[in-house]
């Protein structure tokens, strides 16, 4: 078993338990928001998805830096999967946020809000990651360029976040602040458990995909070693690291 497959079952069980606990807390423990009412329950899924997604992009940048530093392909694979997962979580955060906006503001999108627009910019930026990889045929160059992109775009995420926080004009609610936030105890606990659940889900799916890609790569390498190059079907052009 590869290092990515090790402990995957335990991690998956912890993830399921944490997410189940979070759902119970959301619907049975956390009080209704005095201002927004029931619609605020979306907050417990939307905000963790957005936070974990942004952290995933940064993680992809760090793995990309690891690849540039060491030249080892495994770092490129880690970076690729981290960004791929973060994109999926980001799309989830965007859709759940839009759903909340429709219920709360009456429309799906608000172009005047810097939080929304900046998140969209980050998401679109990282959406170009896969086409960039696909456009480069040589695997070595592909991984190197992709790592440079991951580092630069990953550094853009916290910078973008700070700029948005400094913005004065916003309509997006600011619940989490450096002074402890405006959440009462039960809501804060529910939010923390939800955030932990989504973070664990990200880690589990990242490990799962890494284990799957690793197993596939090993199977190909084994086939080549045992049966020769002719026995291995050549890989087509792909955005994924080989």
């Amino acid at each position: 078993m590869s290092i990515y497959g090790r402990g995957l079952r335990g991690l998956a069980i912890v993830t399921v338990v944490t997410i189940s606990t979070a759902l119970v807390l959301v619907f049975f423990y956390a009080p209704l928001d005095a201002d927004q009412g029931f619609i605020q329950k979306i907050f417990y899924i939307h905000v963790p998805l957005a936070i974990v997604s942004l952290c995933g992009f940064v993680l992809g940048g760090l793995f990309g830096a690891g690849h540039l530093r060491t030249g080892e392909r495994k770092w490129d694979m880690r970076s690729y999967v981290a960004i791929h997962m973060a994109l999926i979580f980001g799309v989830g955060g965007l859709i759940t946020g839009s759903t909340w906006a429709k219920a709360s503001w009456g429309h799906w999108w608000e172009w005047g809000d810097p939080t929304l627009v900046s998140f969209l910019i980050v998401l679109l930026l990282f959406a170009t990651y896969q086409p960039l990889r696909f456009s480069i045929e040589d695997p070595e160059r592909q991984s190197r360029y992709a790592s440079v992109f991951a580092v630069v775009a990953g550094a853009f995420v916290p910078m973008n976040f700070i700029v948005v926080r400094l913005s004065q004009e916003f309509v997006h609610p600011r619940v989490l602040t450096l002074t402890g936030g405006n959440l009462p105890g039960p809501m804060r606990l529910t939010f923390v458990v939800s955030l932990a659940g989504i973070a664990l889900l990200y880690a589990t799916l990242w490990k799962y995909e890494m284990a799957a890609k690793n197993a596939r790569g090993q199977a190909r390498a084994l086939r080549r070693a045992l049966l020769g190059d002719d026995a291995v079907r050549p890989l087509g052009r792909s955005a994924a690291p080989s």
Partner: protein
Amino acid sequence: MTGFVLAAPALPLHSAGKYVAGAYIVFVTLVLVYVAIMATRLRRTERELAQLRRDVAAARDEAAPEPDPEPDPESEPEPDRDAEPVP
């Protein structure tokens, strides 16, 4: 199960409920679609590994030397009783 759902405090069946349900359904759908895609890929890898095992077994059979035929005890030559004992 119904009782469990009904016990949830303030599960409103007015306009907000469908949006909250929609957001959580989107989340669950995303995870399920992802896991389904990964399960399909995993099955493909398992098929490749099974094929690899068959190929390796076939290659091993081809490479193995012909085993020596079992000596037939009935065709074993009788010891020559008249022969000189070997010192």
